């Protein structure tokens, strides 16, 4: 493959061969000589004081390595945004499954019995489990008011709109917790010796997050902590923060025992103890003009953060900014709040707050349509953001996005209007009610606000004397195609073959900190830096007279050989510089929240079976503008996979809580979609490009999680004429609602304005 056609081509996945042959090495595939296995003793109550720990009879405790908080060499915390979360609880537990003690033994089969044999006496304290209980302050479990973070976004004068309004539409929407359910459970191996320090290998997204947490916990300098990512079997945000906890536990056992220690969770432990998507509640109050234009609105967005702060402030921030969606609001006030409950901390999951607030918004837009007697199509068309207008934070839309065109395309591809008519005539005679639902949305790529500025990511590109390139990044591969796409970008920029580029394993001793692998930032932000670093290599070769403006692969290799022979290492670093015009005010929450947005319109077609009350998604059309698509097979795979997870979020995946603990922590009772549950998912890309991303790319990974849930629930409303405002929406919820209010045929006969 030659220069000019590597970016945009579906080149094979770099690590694909090893994955299809079973040769890839995941953390549980690695065994070190003399290695022990570790396990975690966890809190069985949601909140209370730890009074006494007893090691029960029948176990030879001498054989076990036992670690408590007293063994921590540095600070007892998992350093992230705040340092409020202990690595091991001491005198107080704040959620079920909170780690208390660690055990290690050479025989992993002895560990479950040993964990069971440790008994902990508590003085139980009252606990709180819902957003409402947290807001009531009946118990203060975090800070002075149970509140991790509040955000206020204001534009215009909302208080002036209500008297001008022709309609005022108010409603409340909620979303449940969702488990990431990567198929590879979390795991880490740690090894320690006094000379080289601490090394951990594991399943993780963010090597430098783990690195930072271990330095603080162990009181070690940066160069004595080394974090290496193993092949990672799915993550979806679920391996953003909790791997630091597991790495910390493995490290403490390794330090105390002097032996390498492996901790690999089984499915139940992974489900009940690690992070999930934040449950949310969104309240909308919207003023609408006679002709269906949004005059203004108030949005209250609240998320349940669990017992410690972890990533909740930034999840809240993204959710709050996305709460206004792809519409023009002349006046808006968004109040957002993350509150504490006595559940394990909720964390990152694909979409990071946006799927929650966009579910509410896109359900609310359908409710507005109903109130003003417009179709779901027309209400959206009349309110779409246009280039030159401003978002809720006052960011001017500079992209030449035409959302009406995306909508038209989605309607045409889904055969929306013809099917609408067909369903309206067929539904009354059938016990299978069919419906169509739309969701329009946007997703900001990269860290929110000043985030990218603070990260100041760095990447390197290094060339060997035989002209082969290595991309040096801490950005991790966990299925999305990081290694492939970053290699494509480097090959394109260097004018060499894709096969002559590799993206290295993320190892903090070998690679600069290119930031965490989150926020749909890897291709757009890190990719742009890879492009810059590669261009830096080329410039060095040309300015030293070794390479002309155009060259063959042989000439490139000869130039590299000559450079390395005479000048030594050929390596180029690039560091993030904020683009011009991308300015954010953290105090006022004003300005450019993201350097670029991706835009989308999705259409879901459903059947509700009134015998079983189950919903099947029959067809799904996903139209999106994501800038330049750098690898069509991978990009399409991201969208289909995201839609599938979001169908689970909408219709299947319900976490059953009892006293702050997940009760259905198995794959047999927490149900994710199988191949038999999913419709054809049809994916279409518009490509407008993006000056801030590598070769015009924007973020893509998270966006497909945002739209399907509201599109599906809108379709259920279309089918039944009954409104549902919560996900997951299970057959029993539909049964209950229909028992209370028999289905009406009003909606399917509502005026359809094309």
């Amino acid at each position, binding site marked *: 493959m030659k220069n000019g056609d590597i970016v945009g081509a579906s080149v094979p996945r770099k690590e694909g061969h090893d994955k299809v042959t079973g040769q890839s090495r995941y953390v*549980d595939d690695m065994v070190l000589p003399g290695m022990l296995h570790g396990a975690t003793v966890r809190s069985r109550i949601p909140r209370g004081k730890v009074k006494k720990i007893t090691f029960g009879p029948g176990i030879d405790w001498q054989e076990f390595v036992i670690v408590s908080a007293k063994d921590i060499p540095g600070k007892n915390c998992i350093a992230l945004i705040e340092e409020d979360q202990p690595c091991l609880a001491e005198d107080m537990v704040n959620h079920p499954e909170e780690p208390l003690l660690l055990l290690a033994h050479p025989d992993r089969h002895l560990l479950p019995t040993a964990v069971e044999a440790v008994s902990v006496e508590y003085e139980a304290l009252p606990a709180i489990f819902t957003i409402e209980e947290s807001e009531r302050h009946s118990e203060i479990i975090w800070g002075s008011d149970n509140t991790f973070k509040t955000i206020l976004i204001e534009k215009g004068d909302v208080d002036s709109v209500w008297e001008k309004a022709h309609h005022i539409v108010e409603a409340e929407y909620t979303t449940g917790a969702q488990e990431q359910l990567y*198929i590879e459970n979390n795991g880490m191996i740690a090894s320690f010796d006094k000379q080289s320090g601490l090394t951990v290998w594991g399943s993780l997204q963010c090597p430098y997050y783990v690195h930072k947490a271990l330095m603080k916990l162990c009181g070690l300098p940066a160069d004595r902590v080394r974090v290496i990512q193993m092949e990672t079997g799915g993550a979806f945000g679920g391996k953003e923060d909790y791997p630091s906890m597991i790495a910390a536990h493995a490290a403490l056992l390794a330090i105390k025992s002097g032996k390498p220690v492996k901790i690999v969770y089984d499915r139940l432990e992974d489900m009940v103890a690690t992070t999930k998507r934040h449950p949310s509640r969104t309240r909308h109050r919207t003023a609408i003009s006679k002709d269906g234009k949004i005059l203004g609105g108030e949005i209250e967005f609240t998320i349940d953060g669990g017992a410690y702060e972890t990533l909740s402030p930034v999840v809240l921030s993204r959710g709050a900014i996305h709460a206004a969606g792809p519409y023009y609001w002349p006046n808006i006030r968004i109040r957002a709040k993350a509150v504490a409950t006595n559940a394990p901390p909720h964390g990152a999951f694909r979409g990071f707050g946006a799927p929650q607030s966009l579910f509410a918004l896109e359900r609310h837009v359908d409710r507005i349509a109903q109130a003003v007697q417009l179709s779901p199509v027309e209400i959206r068309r009349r309110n779409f953001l246009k280039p030159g207008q401003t978002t809720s934070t006052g960011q001017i839309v500079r992209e030449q996005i035409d959302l009406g065109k995306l909508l038209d395309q989605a309607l045409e591809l889904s055969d929306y209007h013809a099917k609408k008519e067909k369903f309206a005539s067929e539904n009354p005679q059938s016990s299978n009610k069919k419906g169509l639902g739309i969701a329009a949305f946007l997703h900001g790529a990269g860290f929110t606000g000043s985030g990218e500025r603070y990260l100041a990511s760095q990447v390197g590109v290094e060339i060997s004397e035989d002209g082969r390139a290595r991309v040096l990044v801490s950005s991790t591969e966990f299925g999305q195609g990081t290694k492939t796409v970053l290699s494509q970008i480097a090959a394109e920029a260097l004018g060499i073959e894709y096969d002559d580029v590799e993206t290295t394993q993320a190892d903090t001793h070998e690679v600069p900190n290119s930031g965490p692998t989150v926020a749909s930032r890897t291709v757009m932000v890190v990719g742009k830096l890879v492009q810059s670093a590669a261009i830096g290599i080329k410039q060095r070769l040309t300015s030293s007279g070794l390479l002309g403006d155009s060259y063959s692969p042989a000439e490139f290799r000869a130039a590299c050989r000559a450079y390395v022979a005479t000048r030594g290492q050929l390596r180029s670093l690039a560091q993030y510089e904020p683009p011009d015009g991308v300015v954010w005010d953290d105090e006022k929450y004003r300005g450019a929240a993201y350097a670029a947005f991706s835009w989308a319109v999705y259409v879901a077609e459903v059947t509700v079976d009134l015998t079983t009350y189950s919903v099947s998604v029959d067809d799904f059309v996903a139209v999106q503008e994501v800038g330049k698509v750098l690898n069509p097979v991978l990009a399409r795979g991201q969208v289909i996979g995201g839609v599938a997870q979001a169908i689970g979020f909408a219709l299947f995946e319900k976490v059953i809580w009892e006293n702050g603990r997940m009760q259905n922590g198995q794959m047999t009772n927490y149900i994710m979609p199988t191949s038999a549950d999913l419709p054809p*998912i049809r994916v279409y890309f518009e490509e407008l490009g993006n000056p801030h991303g590598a070769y015009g790319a924007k973020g893509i990974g998270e966006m497909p999680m945002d739209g399907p849930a509201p599109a599906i629930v809108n379709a259920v409303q279309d089918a039944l004429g009954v409104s549902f405002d919560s996900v997951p929406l299970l057959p029993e919820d539909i049964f209950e609602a229909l028992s209370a209010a028999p289905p009406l045929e009003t909606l399917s006969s509502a005026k359809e304005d094309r």
Partner: protein
Amino acid sequence: MSDSTHIHTKSRISFRLNGKLVAADSYPMDRLLDVLRVEFGLTGTKEGCGEGECGSCSVLMNGMLVNSCLVPVLQAENADILTIEGLAADSHLHQLQQAFLDCGGAQCGICTPGMILAAYHLLSKNSQPTMQQIRDGLAGNLCRCTGYTQIFEAVAEAARRKKTV
């Protein structure tokens, strides 16, 4: 695996593994999954749930697709076991492996070995399946990354290539 397995004595269990006769000294109730991974170092077989729900540990036993996390190794006595490591002949990828690469059927890769063996089992029974038959044939193997579509396409593509060979 429970503790009770340790009160029994180990015994020699022989079977054919990826075409070769092998023997393992194991407790009879040891999971086939662990014997493959630990005794034989064949770590391509993955554990996802440990209760037969996800299919990541799928292997073929006498031509049947089984969850190796649910198979006590004693049941493998004299059986013919095929794991992902036995699928590629020398350095040549099996058609299914190549199609998974070409069509984007593997993302994070953790379900891939089991998924490819499930597809291999399907094609061994039905060399030209319809999309619906592929969908049904793979419904016992969970994938969280792909939404399955590109896996179906990979299986259909492998079947098409087989037909045209």
